[in-house]
């Protein structure tokens, strides 16, 4: 009964979304305020309905209603409650339902916080969101109904994929989806602007917070996924360049570019078509990512039928959404005139370079991801593109990007003074050299390339701090004065400083994790010990225990450093009852500078394969990511974004509207 209720709510969602996409759009074209005003309530109704559907599915999971096919396939009565709930989105149908729910949530938020938007723009934005909702709710109803029943009712369920039974991964999809779908708002704004034929500073100011929200969630989601891979897959790696990861990384790169180019539109009224294009591409890449992951063109999830119908439907959605918006772009964008001119060496110049590098990076990742598909289609054989390709193409692009990220904020708008900027960055350059010296000394004997990574991180951190010091006049005048200036700085400016600094910390972390790692794989008997990077690990015992829905083999290692007991680590190997799959739970001991990482492998005749890693600077990746997310949140709290555009922008906007039509 509850499941049917959810199904019915989903049907109503489709109807409401249809109305939301047509009526306000027509109203905006006709100048009919009443028709336009329908957008807001429709968005609220749509959200309420999806919430009912989502609630119904969640309820079915919570009470373990095994007459629902989706529940029986992905849940089990023994499963802890957390994973019963996260099982809702741990499968194809449920995850698309979550997608639609988040989309509807963004719709409501636009309706709520879009009070200062011009009515036609607001109506069109919500109508475009409505169109996306139509596509996805139809997708759910026609090919991926989460409420399908199964008869006869099975006694117990198939269990959630054990790899997904993990607190980190329970919250990874909602975060990531909040990011993916958040980009739909920027997309809707871009399409609405193309229909209206005008883009101005005010538009950029409205788009920015939505992009920022999406970016924050994307960042958090990607890092959560990476963190999960790090501790759960048991190889000490954190990024594997597989299609699913790339699918989330490409939108992130484009969203980052968009955040920067929107600043140029806002401050200098130029780079408009480019910014629009980025907004379209950002969401397009989210959609393509969904397509790649869900259609099984690239990866196949064996345990479950991939349905060619589904792939075809998403492809159709792609062609309509991306093809349609890009066609609109080709038609309308040439009419948009750029505003301010600028010299190559200027803040704009720096941001353009940032955009070029970031989008090239995104294209590189896209190529690497699709290359196997291209070859397969051309019957040239099956290949996989791995880390070497990305290390050779993507990483070199990041070097100039980070160097420019240090300079850029020092340059003035329109015409920058490179010599002056260099002068002000002298201290930063010296500090960088000092740090590099220390790093080289500390890492003597390890891979020398790592020092280049540390140099990059140190440069970005020092230049960012120098720019901040310069901005608050530190060292010129009293300290009190500087503190007052710091307090008075706009939050967005704080946001930039904090985010760039966070990036520097991440780069240092990635460098340490990928280049300076020490690993040792060996067979160990009880009582044996091994030395890894100055730490001595002794295998004390291995016990067999039982968890709620799995068996555990737990090893106990005593770690000694300089002859004293340093810590005790307990890695586990779990075997889940239902799917008979094994997962490894690495034991990780984290300090400020490093992780100790121990994995218990297969045991035979009283000896166990153990993998022990010494991972310097890994904690910095997670810290850096946290700092970046914090920086994004700071920037989001900027007063300007909440209050909206000042009046003075109204005049040029009107002039442009007149010019375009």
């Amino acid at each position, binding site marked *: 009964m509850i499941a049917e209720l959810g199904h019915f709510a989903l049907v109503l969602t489709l109807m409401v979304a249809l109305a939301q996409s047509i009526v306000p759009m027509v109203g905006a074209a006709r100048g009919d305020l009443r028709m336009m005003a329908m957008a807001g309530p429709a968005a609220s109704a749509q959200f309420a309905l999806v919430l009912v559907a989502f609630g119904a599915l969640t309820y079915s999971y919570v009470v373990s209603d095994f007459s629902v*096919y989706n529940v029986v396939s992905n849940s089990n009565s023994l499963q802890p409650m957390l994973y019963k709930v996260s099982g809702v989105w741990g499968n194809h149908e449920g995850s698309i339902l979550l997608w639609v729910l988040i989309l509807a949530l963004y719709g409501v938020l636009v309706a709520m916080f879009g009070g200062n938007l011009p009515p036609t723009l607001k109506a069109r934005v919500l109508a475009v969101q409505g169109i996306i909702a139509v596509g996805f709710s139809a997708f759910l109803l026609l090919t991926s109904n989460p409420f399908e029943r199964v008869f006869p009712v099975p006694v117990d369920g*198939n269990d959630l994929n054990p790899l997904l039974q993990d607190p980190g991964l329970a919250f990874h999809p909602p975060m990531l989806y909040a990011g993916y779908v958040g980009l739909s708002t920027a997309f809707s704004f871009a399409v609405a602007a193309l229909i209206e034929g005008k883009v101005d500073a005010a538009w950029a100011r409205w788009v920015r917070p939505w992009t920022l929200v999406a970016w924050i969630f994307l960042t958090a989601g990607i890092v959560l996924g990476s963190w999960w891979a790090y501790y759960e897959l048991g190889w000490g790696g954190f990024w594997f360049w597989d299609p699913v990861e790339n699918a989330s990384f490409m939108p992130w790169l484009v969203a980052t570019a968009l955040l920067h180019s929107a600043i140029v539109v806002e401050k200098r009224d130029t780079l408009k078509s480019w910014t629009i294009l980025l907004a379209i591409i950002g969401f397009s890449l989210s959609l393509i990512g969904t397509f790649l992951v869900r259609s099984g063109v690239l990866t196949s999830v*064996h*345990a479950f039928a991939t349905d060619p119908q589904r792939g075809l439907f998403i*492809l159709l959605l792609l062609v309509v959404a991306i093809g349609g918006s890009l066609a609109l772009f080709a038609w309308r964008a040439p009419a948009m005139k750029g505003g301010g001119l600028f010299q190559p060496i200027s803040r704009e110049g720096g941001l353009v370079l940032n955009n070029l590098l970031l989008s090239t990076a995104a294209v590189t990742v896209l190529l690497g991801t699709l290359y196997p598909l*291209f070859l397969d289609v051309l019957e040239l054989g099956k290949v996989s593109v791995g880390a070497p390709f990305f290390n050779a193409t993507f990483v070199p692009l990041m070097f100039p990007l980070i160097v420019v990220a240090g300079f850029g904020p020092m340059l003035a708008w329109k015409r920058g003074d490179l010599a002056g900027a260099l002068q002000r960055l002298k201290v930063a350059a010296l500090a960088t050299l000092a740090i590099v010296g220390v790093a080289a000394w500390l890492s003597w004997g390890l891979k020398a390339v790592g020092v280049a990574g540390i140099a990059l991180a140190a440069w970005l951190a020092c230049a960012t701090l120098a720019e901040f010091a310069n901005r608050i006049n530190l060292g010129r005048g009293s300290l009190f004065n500087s503190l007052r200036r710091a307090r008075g700085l706009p939050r967005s400016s704080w946001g930039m400083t904090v985010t760039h600094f966070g990036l520097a910390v991440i780069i240092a972390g990635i460098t340490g994790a990928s280049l300076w790692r020490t690993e040792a794989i060996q067979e160990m008997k009880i009582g044996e010990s091994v030395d890894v990077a100055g730490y001595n690990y002794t295998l004390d015992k291995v016990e067999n225990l039982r968890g709620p829905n799995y068996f555990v083999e737990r090893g106990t290692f005593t770690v000694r450093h300089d002859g004293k007991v340093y810590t005790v680590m307990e890695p586990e190997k779990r075997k889940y009852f239902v799917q*008979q799959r094994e997962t490894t739970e690495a034991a990780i001991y984290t300090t400020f500078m490093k992780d100790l990482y121990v994995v218990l492998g297969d045991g035979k005749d009283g000896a166990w394969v153990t993998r022990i890693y010494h991972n310097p600077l890994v904690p910095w990746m997670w810290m850096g990511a946290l700092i970046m997310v914090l920086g994004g949140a700071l920037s989001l709290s900027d007063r300007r974004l909440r209050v909206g555009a000042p009046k003075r922008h109204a005049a040029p906007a009107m002039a442009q509207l007149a010019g375009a039509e």
Partner: protein
Amino acid sequence: MTFRHFLYLLPLLVFLGISIYFAIGLGKDPREIPSALIDKPVPQFELPLLVEDLPGLATADFGGEVAMVNVFASWCIPCRIEHPVITRLADEGILPVYGLNWKDEKEDARAWLNELGNSYTRIGWDLSGRVGIDWGVYGVPETYIVGKQGRIRYKHVGPISREALNETILPIIRELQAE
């Protein structure tokens, strides 16, 4: 059309190019696992029986007539979905349908068959999954068709729907039986 206009059109063209690849990529079965065993003789194996009154399964049981091997397990939900299709096919007597019970406890598998019905002519019990590996089983359910010469001629991955049965599998069976 000016060069400027062409530049604005470029993103659309690139996307359309990519989507053509997507469309063709979809047409190819993404999970078409190039089974190295297609057209090879059935591997050498001998499996014990699962149910008391039905014989087990071994290499010697193949050859002479076209037969189907359905790999299933009680813990596999898609198997539950395809089971009525398999049962009906077996009941129609078009060809012998053998079961290969994969990585399953005996009691669970028997209970499963008691509940859902059992029309297999033979069932081999592969607790360790070793024989499954020889057959090239990646997961359950999978279904193989073995020709008159005792060679594996076709492999279906995932549950068999009625459409797949009528449109793909039955024609193949008829073709092989006519050979």
